[in-house]
């Protein structure tokens, strides 16, 4: 299990991470979602002991990364696929990583095979496409067969086939009981690949929950078609609901449930022709949540550390 406790990180004047607090549990794929520059990568670097937190701490199964005895056997991470010496071959890169943690040499060929880059194992990494580099990075993360896996923006640079492959791969890792923590700024990607989602904005925790929870709690709208739209509009407005005239005969009602609207229409003797609750998409929820987060920052978007 991965635990982040009151974590803060300041770079000069910028508070990149501001009091983050969350747990990432085994057995599910947890998405780490936020706009670019919201502190996702910084948080991941702190979890891996690469950056020192200003306050708070991150632990893996109760231990700080720095104190892990066999780091690659406990945590596998892919932060930046291009963070490899370009002049070294894929196999030699993995061999060096394996040797540092006393991982058998045969494991190198196994993971190369698994991610599907065996044929270029003896080629220099500098000539790899981003997709191939991502696969090499995943191979490195899997070397020690770890129980906790971290991926920072893993679908970047992958083709549709690769994206599908990686989704299934995350799912299978989680099904094996591992902790899988995946960051992304793409809501749509998280909606299909993650079970649990942690949303942050401007370094602050915004919300956490399953995809269903997040959309259920959001302000959905109700599509209404009645015999007397004009009359219903005034009734809804008196109940503090919002009304938008969509087409000629359709109303989109906000801030009221379909039950409330139906009751009101019945009470006023209006015939309801259609009453359809419209669930907010995760995308809408995300925009709504992070738009709020931007206000906290006082509009200093240009000063935020680029990820």
């Amino acid at each position, binding site marked *: 299990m991965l635990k982040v406790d009151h974590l803060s990180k300041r770079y000069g004047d910028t508070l990149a991470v501001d009091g983050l607090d969350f747990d990432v549990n085994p057995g599910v794929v947890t998405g780490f979602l936020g706009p670019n520059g919201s502190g996702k990568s910084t948080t991941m*670097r702190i979890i*891996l*002991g*690469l*950056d*020192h937190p200003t306050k708070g701490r991150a632990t893996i199964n109760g231990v700080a*990364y*720095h*104190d*892990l*005895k*066999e*780091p*690659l*056997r406990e*945590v596998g*991470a892919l*932060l*930046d696929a*291009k*963070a*490899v*010496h*370009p*002049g*070294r*071959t894929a196999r*030699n890169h993995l*061999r*060096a*990583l*394996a*040797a*540092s*943690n*006393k*991982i058998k040499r045969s494991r190198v060929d196994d993971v190369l095979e698994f991610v599907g880059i065996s044929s270029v194992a003896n080629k220099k990494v500098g000539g790899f496409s981003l997709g191939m580099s991502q696969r090499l990075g995943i191979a*490195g993360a899997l070397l020690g067969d770890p129980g906790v896996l971290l991926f920072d923006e893993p679908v970047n640079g992958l083709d549709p086939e690769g994206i599908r492959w990686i989704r299934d791969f995350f799912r299978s890792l989680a099904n094996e009981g591992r902790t899988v923590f995946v960051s992304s700024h793409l809501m749509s990607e998280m909606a299909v690949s993650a079970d649990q989602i942690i949303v942050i904005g401007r370094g602050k925790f915004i919300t956490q929950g399953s995809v269903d929870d997040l959309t259920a709690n959001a302000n959905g709208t109700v599509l209404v078609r009645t015999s007397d739209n004009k009359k219903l509009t005034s009734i809804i407005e008196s109940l503090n609901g919002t009304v938008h005239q969509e087409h000629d005969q359709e109303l989109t009602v906000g801030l009221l449930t379909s039950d409330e609207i139906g009751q009101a229409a019945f009470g006023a003797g209006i015939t309801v022709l259609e009453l359809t609750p419209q669930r907010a998409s995760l995308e809408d929820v995300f925009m709504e949540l992070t738009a709020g987060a931007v206000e906290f920052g006082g509009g200093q978007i240009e000063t935020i550390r680029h990820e």
Partner: protein
Amino acid sequence: MNNEVTLMSVAKSEWIKFRTVRSTVVGMFIFVFLTLGLGVLITWLIRSHYATMPIGQKLTFDPVSSSLGGIVFAEFAVGVIGALFISSEYTSGAIRTTLAAVPNRVRLILAKLFVLVVSMIVISEIVVIATFLIGMKIFSGVVPTDSLSDGAVLRAVLLSGVYLTLLALFSFALGIILRQSIASISVFVSLLLIVPLLGFFFPQSWQNHFQKFEPINLGGSMMSVTSKPLNFAPWSAFAVLLIYVAFLLVLGTTMFTRRDA
């Protein structure tokens, strides 16, 4: 089964990294080529002109430092090898992958040092001994020669290899501090070549005092049989250079453990 990360497992990993990049292999080749090749060229030129050499030069002639004259050029190749061993990890971003596998930063530096010291000392000593022996072969019969059976000669030859190894560590330490390949190599070359030039702006009496502290002159003292009047004695020169290297390494490692990767 104990799979704990240890100094030796990290050293093994660093050894794989050290020898699997072209910069190390090419750097070593240039280093050997310059030391040996220029050594042969210099000794051959001395042999052909020795008869006409002024008597004063003949009296202070040192067969050891003459035969190892190629080191003056080879030391820059050594500097590149040392600096790149750490700076290339920053340039490529690979340092993050490395530190995720080896979170103990002091252990990482020690492992890299171990690999650098062992490989540099072995190659340097083989090269300087071979260069010296070939030089003496070329000199023999025309120019006075020295033999490794003479204690002072053996010391001068072996300390030449030690000098080159210490230079590699010197630039390695600069690489830790500066984190940029080009910056590290530039500063290394500047300290070796440009700082001595600055001495010319100062009065001669000052120069006499300070020039012996310059790395190149420390090297000159270490690899010559005869002590020059204004320079350190060989072992003192070794100690001064060792202090430089130790200071930079401690400074670099301290910075390395404190800053974000």
